[in-house]
């Protein structure tokens, strides 16, 4: 199991600069982004999923989670970070 692949999910009201803010935070901690999906649902709800690799990150997973949560609060969004397996297990056989 690859423990370094982490899914970062961002949900909340849309505004300019969300992708840049979150990506900057990840870059500062040396978290590599492998894949991004982003869209605005129902007119104004921003939803983004980012598959990341944290194997070279300069902080551990717990600290990264905390930083993302704080960033979410600052931006008025919900930001989650979870190991990728949970989604694979639930949606793929």
């Amino acid at each position, binding site marked *: 199991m690859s423990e370094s692949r982490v899914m970062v999910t961002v949900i909340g009201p849309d505004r300019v600069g969300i992708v840049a803010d979150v990506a900057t935070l990840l870059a500062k901690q040396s978290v590599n982004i492998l894949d991004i999906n982003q869209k605005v649902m129902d007119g104004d709800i921003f939803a983004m999923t980012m598959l990341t690799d944290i194997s070279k990150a300069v902080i551990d997973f717990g600290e990264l989670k905390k930083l993302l949560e704080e960033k979410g609060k600052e931006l008025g969004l919900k930001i*989650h970070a979870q190991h990728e*397996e949970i989604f694979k297990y*639930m949606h793929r056989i």
Partner: protein
Amino acid sequence: MTISPEEILETIQMIEQESLDVRTVTMGISLLDCSHSDVKVVGEQVIAKIERLAGKLRETAKGIEMDYGIPIVNTRLAITPISQVVAGGHKDDFVYIAKCLDEAAKRVGVNFIGGFSSLVQKGFTTQDIALIDAIPEALSSTERVCSSVNVASTRAGINMDAVKKMGQVIKEAARLTADRGGLACAKLVVFANAVDDNPFMAGAFHGVGEPECVVNVGVSGPGVVRAAVKAAKGKDLGEVAEIIKKVGFKITRMGELVGREISRRLNVEFGILDVSLAPTPAEGDSVAEILEAMGLERVGAPGTTAALALLNDAMKKGGAFASSYVGGLSGAFIPLSEDQGMIRAAREGVLSIEKLEAMTAVCSVGLDMIAIPGDTSAETISAIIADEAAIGVINNKTTAVRIIPVPGKKVGDMVYFGGLLGEAPIIPVSRLSSKEFIDRGGRIPAPIQGMKN
């Protein structure tokens, strides 16, 4: 194998808004090797063994919760039915051991330890009698210990002497905790066809055919199923069953991941996954509201039993496909005091104990967390247990009774237990006497269904 953003958001929504969680990670521990003629030695060995095997359980569960972002609500322990471990035949020995179990649970940080139990479907050993006599004192003087007694099985029939005794034990347990609404009774389950690997409380114990140490996982998610059924308004019941099955599959897969991961991290065998819809007092996390979402004005309306049968079966089918090791009770629970929809219906007087009894014929357990008037006689409680056991024995399923005759309370009053145990209105029971029937005692023979070889 990319996962679409819609799928990712669906998972997040299940957890965030629909209260999806892993309800319990329960470690089963065999205590057979802790037996000794001196009960003090038994106590020391039991505490030492539990600390050794379960010392990291809570911390490991917390780690998995963080990594996957899925709440793991409880960590618990299930032990060998303790009547098989304590050699002495004295009640005080069992009360002493209950206190040791409580201490062990506190030390490893689990909120319940199940297995203060006896299996007496065919008859009593000296230890069984001492244990059963000790139950009221044991449960009223400890905080985390849970007890269960199996009084019947499809293979053995119904031990009516045990049924009679359990009516008295429940009354006494309520009396000793009168200041807390009879709380001790909320930690006591009377079973028919009890299972060896159920991770849920209060009825968990580590059966004798189980390995030295094992982890069993109980997943839940009434809120997720309710949301899915609500979204299917107007669809026919075959389609509703299909939708529930798919949700059951997803919930089970998540539990499977957690179970396998916790087993790997602790280096302990993975036992089973129990796919049970277990309601909580949280808004929307209600089994009753799933049935209402299918189109019933209130739970308890005609059609309730059919709706529950559909739900229970669809959950099992979804679960069976998602994991090879589905076990325990797997289905839907209907604990009255823990389900907002049930509480509402009982308060309005539209959900009776008789309807609940019918529902237990088609769901995974029995009469659960039901508060009844404090002056209900021991014989009436025994007779309720006998009826429930008969449903289990004849239908080859587990049934159970967890009933609280709340001291000093009458029909229409409320009792508050707090936390996961919730609150309940006192509902009426028949005032007709069953005394002569219960006083007969003896054993109701195993039914013809039990002769399967």
